C-alpha cells in the first residue's frame, strides 16, 4: 500500500514531511583551519603598501567564499565551521594557511561505521535531502562487502525516471507477512486454505530496537512516534512498551522467551510480534493469544536448513541479524548471508510465502537497494538510527548487547522524531533514484533481482581473466 488514507478515506500519496533539524550537540568541524598570525600580518602590510588605502576592498578581499575569514578580524580568528575544504586559501597562501581534516571528526563512528558515513547520515538526518555534490567518486575502487557491489542501470528503456518527477509512479511499498503460493476456493467461492496475511509498508525500512546503551523513555518515544510518522514499524522491547505506556499500531513488541505473562499486560493488539530467538512455547503462546497478529522470528542468520525448518514450523516472517559490522556468527558478510537465505527459500519453492527482514551492517542509503537486490524484503535500521540521533560510538560497536553509544544530553522527542523522518525521507528518495536508474517501478520487484546486480569478483574475473598475475591473486 503506497498510499495512505486521510480521515475521509481519500487517497493521499505517501510522503515524509521533512523539516530542518540541525545538530543539537556541536560535533567537531570537518576541517581545521590554521593561519599563521605573523604571515598574515606581513601580508597585510605588504598589501597596504602595494594597493594603498584607496583600494581597501582589494586588501580585504578574502580567498574564502564560504565565510571562514569573514569574522570581525578576518584570518586572525578563522571560523572553521564554515570550511568546506576547497583549499583555495591554502593554495593562495601555502606558507601560512593550513587546512587539515579535523582528527576529532575522523574519530566519529568506528572501523565499520566510518566518518564518511557518519557525515552522510548527519546531512541526511538534518534536512532530509539527498547528498548531491560535484566532482566524481573519491573512494576506493571496490572492495569487500557492499563496496564490491554495483547496481545495474537501464540505458534507454523503461521510463521510470519520470516517477521521480511525479508523472509516473515508483512504488517503494513492500509486504510483510505471509502469502500462499496459490489460493484454494470452494464451490461458493470461499477460500478454503490459508489466505494472505500481510502488513503493507510504504517503505522497505523498519526501525530496529536500539541497543541497550541508548535505551531510555526518550529514545523509545522517539522510535514509536517516528515509526508512526513514516507509516512504518518499530521494534521495541516489550518491557519498554509496558513501562512507558507506548501505544500505537506501529509498535512491534520484541518478546523474549519467558515473557508470556508480560504479554498479557499489552493493551493493544500489535500487527506483529517479534520473537527474540526460537522458542516453541512462546511461539505457540503468541499464536493462541494473538491469532490476528503476525509473528516474526528475530535471530542471527541461521543455516539454510534451519531456516526451512522454522518455515515448516509456521514461521513466515524472519528478521535475520548480522552484527553491527555486517558479520554473521561465522564471519560471513551480511550480503552473502542474505543471498544464501533468499536462495534457500527460492530453491524450496516457498520464497513468496515468507518475508525476510534483515539488520546489521546496513548503514548507508545504498545498502537498502543492494540488500533488497540480494533478497531481503525490508531492512531494519539499527546503528544508522543512533547516528541520526547524534549518537557517538564509544569504541568499536559490534553488537546489540555490548555496544556502547552516548546520545546528546539535550535529546528531545520532537527533534529526534524529525531526524528519523528526515533520514527515512532521504533514503527513500535515494531508493527512488536507484530504482529509476534501474528502470524498476516497484521495490517489490527489485527483491532478489540478482541479474540487476554486479559484483566486483565477477566483473574482475570477466574482464581481467588472462592478465598475468590475476589468477594467482584471485586464488591466493
Amino acid at each position, binding site marked *: 500500500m503506497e498510499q495512505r488514507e486521510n480521515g475521509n478515506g481519500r487517497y493521499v500519496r505517501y510522503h515524509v514531511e521533512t523539516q530542518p533539524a540541525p545538530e543539537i550537540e556541536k560535533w567537531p568541524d570537518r576541517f581545521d583551519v590554521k593561519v599563521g598570525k605573523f604571515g598574515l600580518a606581513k601580508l597585510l602590510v605588504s598589501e597596504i603598501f602595494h594597493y594603498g588605502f584607496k583600494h581597501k576592498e582589494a586588501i580585504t578581499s578574502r580567498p574564502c567564499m564560504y565565510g571562514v575569514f569573514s569574522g570581525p578580524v578576518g584570518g586572525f580568528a578563522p571560523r572553521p565551521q564554515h570550511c568546506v575544504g576547497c583549499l583555495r586559501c*591554502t593554495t593562495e597562501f601555502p606558507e601560512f594557511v593550513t587546512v587539515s581534516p579535523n582528527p576529532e571528526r575522523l574519530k566519529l563512528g568506528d572501523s565499520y561505521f566510518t566518518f564518511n558515513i557518519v557525515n552522510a547520515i548527519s546531512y541526511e538526518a538534518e534536512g532530509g535531502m539527498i547528498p*548531491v555534490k560535484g566532482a566524481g567518486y573519491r573512494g576506493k575502487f571496490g572492495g569487500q562487502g557492499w563496496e564490491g557491489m554495483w547496481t545495474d542501470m*537501464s540505458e534507454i528503456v523503461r521510463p521510470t525516471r519520470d516517477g521521480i518527477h511525479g508523472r509516473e509512479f515508483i512504488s517503494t511499498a513492500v509486504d510483510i507477512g505471509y502469502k500462499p503460493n496459490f489460493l484454494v476456493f470452494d464451490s461458493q467461492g470461499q477460500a478454503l486454505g490459508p489466505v494472505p496475511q500481510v502488513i503493507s509498508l510504504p517503505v522497505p525500512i523498519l526501525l530496529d530496537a536500539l541497543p541497550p546503551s541508548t535505551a531510555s523513555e526518550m529514545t523509545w518515544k522517539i522510535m514509536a512516534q517516528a515509526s508512526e510518522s513514516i507509516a512504518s514499524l518499530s521494534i521495541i522491547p516489550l518491557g519498554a512498551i509496558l513501562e512507558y505506556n507506548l501505544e500505537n499500531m506501529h509498535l512491534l513488541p520484541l518478546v523474549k522467551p519467558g515473557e508470556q505473562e508480560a504479554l498479557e499486560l499489552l493493551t493493544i493488539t500489535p500487527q506483529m510480534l517479534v520473537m527474540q530467538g526460537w522458542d516453541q512455547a512462546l511461539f505457540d503462546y503468541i499464536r493462541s493469544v494473538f491469532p490476528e497478529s503476525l509473528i516474526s522470528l528475530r535471530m542471527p542468520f541461521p543455516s539454510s536448513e534451519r531456516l526451512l525448518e522454522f518455515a515448516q514450523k509456521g514461521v513466515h516472517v524472519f528478521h535475520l541479524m548480522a552484527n553491527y559490522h555486517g558479520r554473521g556468527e561465522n564471519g560471513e558478510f551480511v550480503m552473502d548471508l542474505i543471498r544464501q537465505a533468499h536462495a534457500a527459500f527460492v530453491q524450496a519453492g516457498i520464497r513468496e510465502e515468507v518475508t525476510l527482514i534483515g539488520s546489521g551492517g546496513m548503514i548507508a542509503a545504498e545498502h537498502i537497494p543492494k540488500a533488497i537486490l540480494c533478497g531481503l524484503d525490508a531492512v531494519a535500521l539499527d546503528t544508522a538510527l543512533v547516528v541520526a540521533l547524534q549518537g557517538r560510538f564509544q569504541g568499536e560497536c559490534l553488537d546489540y548487547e555490548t555496544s556502547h553509544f552516548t546520545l546528546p544530553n539535550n535529546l528531545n522527542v520532537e527533534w529526534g522524531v524529525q531526524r528519523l523522518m528526515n533520514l527515512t525521507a532521504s533514503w527513500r528518495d535515494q531508493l527512488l533514484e536507484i530504482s529509476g536508474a534501474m528502470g524498476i517501478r516497484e521495490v517489490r520487484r527489485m527483491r532478489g533481482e540478482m541479474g540487476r546486480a554486479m559484483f566486483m569478483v565477477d566483473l574482475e574475473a*570477466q574482464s581481467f581473466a588472462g*592478465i598475468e598475475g590475476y589468477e594467482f591473486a584471485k586464488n591466493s
Partner: protein
Amino acid sequence: MNSQKTVEQLIVEKHTANLRRGFHLWAERLVEAPPALGDYRWTEELILSTYYQAEHGRPPKNGMEYRFGRSGGGFDVLDFKFLPEDQWLSSSEQIDLSLPLNKRAEGNKIEIPIPIYGGGMSYGSISEQVMLARAMAAQRWNTFFSTGEGGYPNSLVKYKDHIITQVATGMFGVREETIKYSPIVEFKYAQGAKPGLGGHLLGDKATTTVAELRESVPWVSLFSPFPFHSVYSVEDHRKHVDWIKTTNPKALVSVKVSTPTDVDMVAVGSYYAGANIIHLDGSYGGTGAAPEIAKKNIAMPIEFAVPKVHKYLMSENIRDEVVLMASGGIRTADDIAEIIALGADGVVLGTSELVALGCTRCSNCERGRGCPFGLTTTDPLLSQLVTPEWGAQRISNLFESYTYRLREILRRLGLGDMRALRGRKDLLRYLGKNGNGRSE
C-alpha cells in the same frame, strides 16, 4: 597603475596571481603539500603531478607519483609488462599516436593526432573562460572537445571545427546551426557519474546567459530527464541518428552511454543504429553535480566495461568498423595506455583537464556560486580567475606530457603505433590489491 584599474580588476588580479603562485609552489614541492588534498582515486601526488605537467609539459622528475592512485583496483592494480631495456624501441623512432574517428567505409574521414579528446562539460557547469581554454587547446592539438548539454556562447564559434556538439536528454542548447557546424555530434544517453539519471544544473549556476542559451528560466535548477523520451529501442535510436545525418550529412555520430551490465549489447545496438563512435563513460567519471549515491553504486567502472564491449564487438565482427572511446576515471597517461590495452581505441578526458587548471577535487562544484577556483562556475567574478590563454596552455602542456609518456610506454613495449596496443591484455600484469611491484 593600480589607480587605473577597477577594484574588481585588482581583486581578480590579486587572487589570480596568488593562485598561480600556489600551484607552482606545490607542484615544485617548494612548500609542504596541503594535508586535506587528495583522495583514493586522485591522490595528493596525482593532483600535484598534474599541476606540474600542466606547467612543464613533461612528467615530474622530482619523484612525485604521476602514473597511478591508491584506489586499490582497476588501473591502480594494473601495470605493463615492459620489455627488457635492450629491446625497447630507440628514442629516434617515430611513435604514431593518431586515431581515426570514423572506421566505416562511408562518411567523413577524421583523424586526430592523439587518442584523446575532451569530454562534455556544459556551459553553466563550467565557465565560458574554461570552455574557451578547452577549445583553444583542442585546436592546438587538432583534436576535439564536447560542449556538454547546454550549447555554447558565440565566442566559441570560431573553434567550431574542434567542437563536438552534444545532444542530451534535456536537449538544452541544441540548435540547428550548432549541429550543422559540428564535425561530430554526440548523443548523451547517460553519464558515468550518474547513470540512469539526467543532468543536474543547480539554480545558482543557471545565470541569465546560461538560461538564455538553454531557453530556460534564469536561476531555476535544471534537471534533464532520463532517458531520451523519444528513444526506447535501437530503432528509435536509429531515428535520432538519421535526424542528425539529415541536418548535417557530414557529421560523425558519437553515442555516449554508461556502463550497465548489458553494455556490450548497447554498444552493438548503437553500432547498428549508425554510430561511428561508441563512447563508454564509466561509473567513476566526473560531474558538476550528482547524487553521491549514484557515483559509486550504479553501473560498472570503465576498466570492466571496455574489455567486455571490445570482446563482444570482436565476436560480432564489427570491432574494426566502430571507434570505442572510454572515459570515467581516466586520470593519467598510464590510465590511457591501460584502457587502450584493455580494448578501447582512445579516451575522453574531463577531470584531468580541470585539475590542470587548478581543481583540487573538493567536490564543491555545485555549491552556491560554484567553484572557488573559477572552473565550474558562472559567477562573473570567479570565472575571471581563469583566462582562456593561460588555461589553454595548461591543458596543452598536460597533453604534451601525456603524449611524451604514452610514447615512452609504447617504446618500452616495442610498439610503434598506439593502434597496435588496442586489446593487448597480454601486455598487462595484475599487481594485486595493494598495487605493489609496479615497474619504474
